[in-house]
Structures are given as C-alpha cells and as structure tokens.
C-alpha cells in the first residue's frame, strides 16, 4: 500500500501539519514547528478531544 498524506498534530505545541503515512512503516516524526517528537496522527476522536481542550 502506498503512503498517503495525513494530518498529524503535535502534543507539545498543538501545531497541525500534513505528512506522508505508510501504514507498513514506522518512521521518526517531528513537529515542523517546535521539533518535538510527540507527534500523533489526527483521528476524528483526537480532533474532537483537542477541540474540547482548546489544543
């Protein structure tokens, strides 16, 4: 399966960004804004949670 562009968000600064995601590969990710590695793929649930918390 080819990689797709997905939205990720940073758990440190809250920045959202697009990055390639290949489900078969685990790659090192970092936030383009703050450089943190606490980067998570945005899912409908995480989006809702972030909105609720104001992040």
């Amino acid at each position, binding site marked *: 399966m080819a990689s797709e562009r997905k939205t990720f968000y940073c*758990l*440190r600064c809250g920045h959202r960004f697009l990055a390639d995601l290949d489900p078969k590969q*685990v*790659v*090192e990710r970092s936030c383009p804004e703050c450089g*943190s*590695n*606490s980067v998570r*793929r945005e899912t409908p649930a*995480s989006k809702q949670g972030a909105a609720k918390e104001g992040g």
Partner: protein
Amino acid sequence: MMDAGRHPRIQLLVNSEVEDITGFVGNYRALVRRKARYVDAEACNSCAECAEVCPVAVPDEYQQGFSSRKAIYLPFPQAVPASYFLNADDCLGFNPIACGKCREVCEKECIDFDARDELLDLEVGTIVVATGMAPYDPRPNDEYGYTRFPNVVTSMEFERLICAGGPTEGEFVRPSDRRVPERIGFIQCVGSRSASRGVPYCSNICCMNTIKQCLLLADHYPDSRSTVFYLDIRAFGKGFEDLYRRTREEGVHYLRGLPGSVDEDPETHDLTVRVENTLSGRLETHRFDLLVLATGLVPHKGNGDGGGRRSVDEILSLAHTADGFVMEAHPKLQPVDAPSRGVYFAGCIESPKDIKESVTQAGAAAARAGNVLSAGQVRIEAITAQLLPELCAQCKICAQVCSFNAVVEASKRDDLLPEFIEAACAGCGTCAAECPFDAIHMKHFADAQITAQIEAILAEEPMRKIVAFACNWCSYAGGDTAGTSRLQYPPSVRLIRTMCSGRVDQKFIWHAFRSGAPLVLVSGCHFSDCHYIDAVTWTQRRVEKAWTRMEKLGIRPERLQLEWISAAEGRKFARVMKELDELRRRVTPEEVAETRRILEREEQKERRKRAGTAPTAPPPQPDDGTVRGLGGTA
C-alpha cells in the same frame, strides 16, 4: 582474491546468494543458493573456444558497456575461479537447446546445460558482511548531459577507457569519434553532498580518484589539459596532499564551482561547460573534448527484490543509519561489529571508503571473527531476557518483536514454549515490554525495580515531578552531556534509566500516572541511532497505543510525551526538559486526581479479569549465569 581461492581453509562460493540465516553467534546456519554456472569450473581451462563460437553479443558490464561479451564468457581477466560462465539469461536457450555451439567445440566437455542451482546448508560460527556499495547513477543530474552526449562519461567509465585491460587496451579515446581527447574536464561531487539530488554525504573517494586520474592523464598523455570543477578538494590521508600538489605542478587546473550547464556541439561533439567561478565570482565558459563525472557512492540495495527474495540486510536484520549504510554496534568502540553478536562488517557496506580503509576494516572484521571462533565462548552482559514459563501463553509476540533472533518461537500445536537464547539476546527488553502476559523477566531491569523507582520519585510532592524514562545509550547520555556542559534544566525532571526505550512497558506509564505523575516522558535514540536495530520503532508504536488509550479514558494524551534525543544533544535535552516543565505546570491537581481515579478503576477491572483467567505469577527464576550454546558465563 586468488590467494583466497587457493587457500585450503577458504571455500569461495561465487555466483551464490544467501537465502536465509538462522541461529546465533557460534551457531549460525546459512542457506546459500549456488547458482548453476553450466560450466565445470574445475575442468575448464579458459581456452575461450566456446566464446569464439557463441553467436550472442551483449554489452560487457565489466567494461561499462564499451565493448561486448558473449553469453558464455570470463567475467573479467582476474576472475576466480578462472573459468568460463554461461549466463542463462543471455543464451539463446538450452531447454530445448537452441544453439549448443559452445558445447560442440568444448574439447574438455565441461559444459552441462542440465546443471541446476545447488542449495548449501552451511554451519558457521561468525559472519562477515561485505556486500559493498553501488556507484551513483548520474542520470537525474540532467544538466551534465550524461547519456545525452556520448562524450560525457562517469569516473568508472573513464577508468575502463584508460585501463590497459579496458575495451581499447589502454588507448585513451573518446566514445564519439575514437579520437584522443586533449581537453578533459572533471566534475566533482556528482550525486554527493546534495540534499536535492543524490546523497547528502561526502562519498570519500571521488576527490582522490580524480587526482589519480589526472596524474594518469598527465603521465600517459603529456599534451592533455585537465580541469577539475570542485566544491572542496578533500585530500586527507597519508600522502594524499602530496598527490594533490603534484597534479597542480603537472598543470591540472582546479576551478572552484560546479557547472550549471553542459552543451554539445552537434558536429564536433565537443562540450561547452558554463560555470560560476566562485573564487573570482565570474561566469566562465570552457570547452572540452571529454567530460568526466566524479560520481558518488550509494548504499548497495543487496540482492533483495522487494518481493519474496530478501537481501542480506533483511535476513540479518541489519539496522541502517540515515544515509542508508549499515549501522555498527558502536561507531567508535565497535566499528566493525553489527548489533547482532558474531556479525561483522567490512568495506563499503558500512560507509564509503577507499581500498586502504576497506582492507583495514576487513582485517579488523576477520580478527574479530577469529577471536570469537578461537575462544569458543562469548562473554555477554548479564542483562538478558528470561522466560517465566508459568505465565507464558505461547502467543509468539516475543519472537516476532526480537530483531536479534534471540527467541525461538513457541508452538501451541507442539506445546513448546519460546526458547530464549542468551548468547543472542542484546538485552533491549522489547520482548518483556510487549509480552501481554508479563511472562518475561528482564534481568537487572525487572518490572519490580522500575516500578520501585517510579514510586520513589513520586513518593513526595508528585505534582512537582516529571517521570522521564531515558535509554542508556542516547537520552540518558544526552542528559549527561547537558550536565557536563553545565546546561541548566529544571529539577522536576527525574530520570529512570533503561537500556533501551523499548523496555518501557505501557504498565510503567500507567503506574506513573496512577502514582500521581502529572507528566511522563519516554525518550530514546533517534531511529537511525538505535542500538538495538529497530527496538525504538516498538517504543513509538507502544506510546501511540498509550495515547489512544489515554484519549479513550479521558486523560489528555499531552501528558505523555515522546522524544528522541541522542547522546550529543545535550542542548536539546535541556530545552526539552524546560518545555516539559512548562507542560507540567499546566496540569492541575484535580486533573491528576481524576486520572488516578480512572486508572485505579481500570486496574481493578484488569485485576478481576486476570483473577478469572491467569495463574498467579511466581517469583522470577534464579539466574544460574549459563549462556546457552557456548558454555560461557554471563
């Protein structure tokens, strides 16, 4: 090569591929496919009569396509064994026989069209991986006109053109009209030191190779004029600066700047190069008869085809650095060792290097391998995984996550528990962290030891603490670097050292939150620095799962942070800790209390579930210190 071929204790398996390797140091088993060469190498006396009658002509790879070879051929003059070889892909066909002329003329009757591949099962104690590198393909650098203009060649092609054993027998001519070129340009760093096209690193050998080629030209063709376009000339190494100076004395013109375009005169096939001389700041135009691209070196992709066939790198689970070359166990202290014990590197598989360096490394690799073989036993760290058989559910996860092949898979069908091979175990603890039944005891980094540290950290003023798990090799060392560099970072950060971040079990994270931690950090090596091949990828997967669970339980995932910090990144360590302290201050006591309630409730649920399904955990087995397979001691 010839010495190796003649050595009574060296068995050369040419035209062969490694299909599988199992086992561990001292006890490896390699499955090797020796491909059919269709010519009896022992009987063949290289009379060449077969090649003379062969009607097939294909480009000769060894001569870079400047001449042709037959379907039956001697790969190169110094080939060992010095026997002809029939390339089945090029032959007109021998099943049924379409031509058969070679067999008709072979007086020694050494051609056998019925030959088949042979599978060899070899028992070996150690493995030296020397699968080399590949030259960079300069076609993406279209501004240089490679393949568009016949007189633009690579340094490898130049080597064949000027070589006495080359297609022109040392008569140096240019490809378009077979005329001896007088004006020769060399473009350095083609494919090297470029972030956009090629590779970002310096390929190490190109500068000295060009200097050598300029000296050859000056020696063989005194009327030739060489110009070298360069970024920097890197002539470090014994005697190299002298060679560089000699080329300048011989009249080689060095121009700092890489050409922006190359055009060809369609009639004469001469080449016009436009370049900015970065020393004078002027745009210059130069005309050449021949242009040589000093192409860089790129990692060899191995023999894997991405499908069913695996490369040696994949078979041995070799880790790679960011540049694609294999990663050593330690860049300074174990530069020829792979992370897996008993596996060593030689040559350009590890990084681009010249002949002298390759020979040095090969000698070191052979010595390292010899040490193990002659000792008959290995000494290992006592930090290894141990199975608690009573708790094992034979789920096979431990074997699946182990990149060191240190776990022999369990079998429910045969009622076999997984077998842990201590001689192969590197002690990362990933298996223990991934085991859903807590059936693996990690010596010296046991669950009880780590949870005790968490409890000690959070025993007093937990709201003012950050529980940070740091791997021994990178993050913890990064903290040391920050300390020795006198960099300030908040005292709220309390480190718990594990050998690898892969050891950080999800239950440690939950235990920290349940004990009142406002913030937890999991930190380890960058992916390309991981000392345990790919254990760090399991860390990331695990933290991602923990984030998802936190979200489901109504705990902010932001309170679990992940960071990759190398040993050299003391500044990053200090900066990250300051950022985390800011995050910690935003966590309220009410939020922590709510988290504790949620996790306590979950824990009770888990306990009830476990009580109904699993047996009580026995204490860890005493360690008798025996290392399986080699009779050594831990």
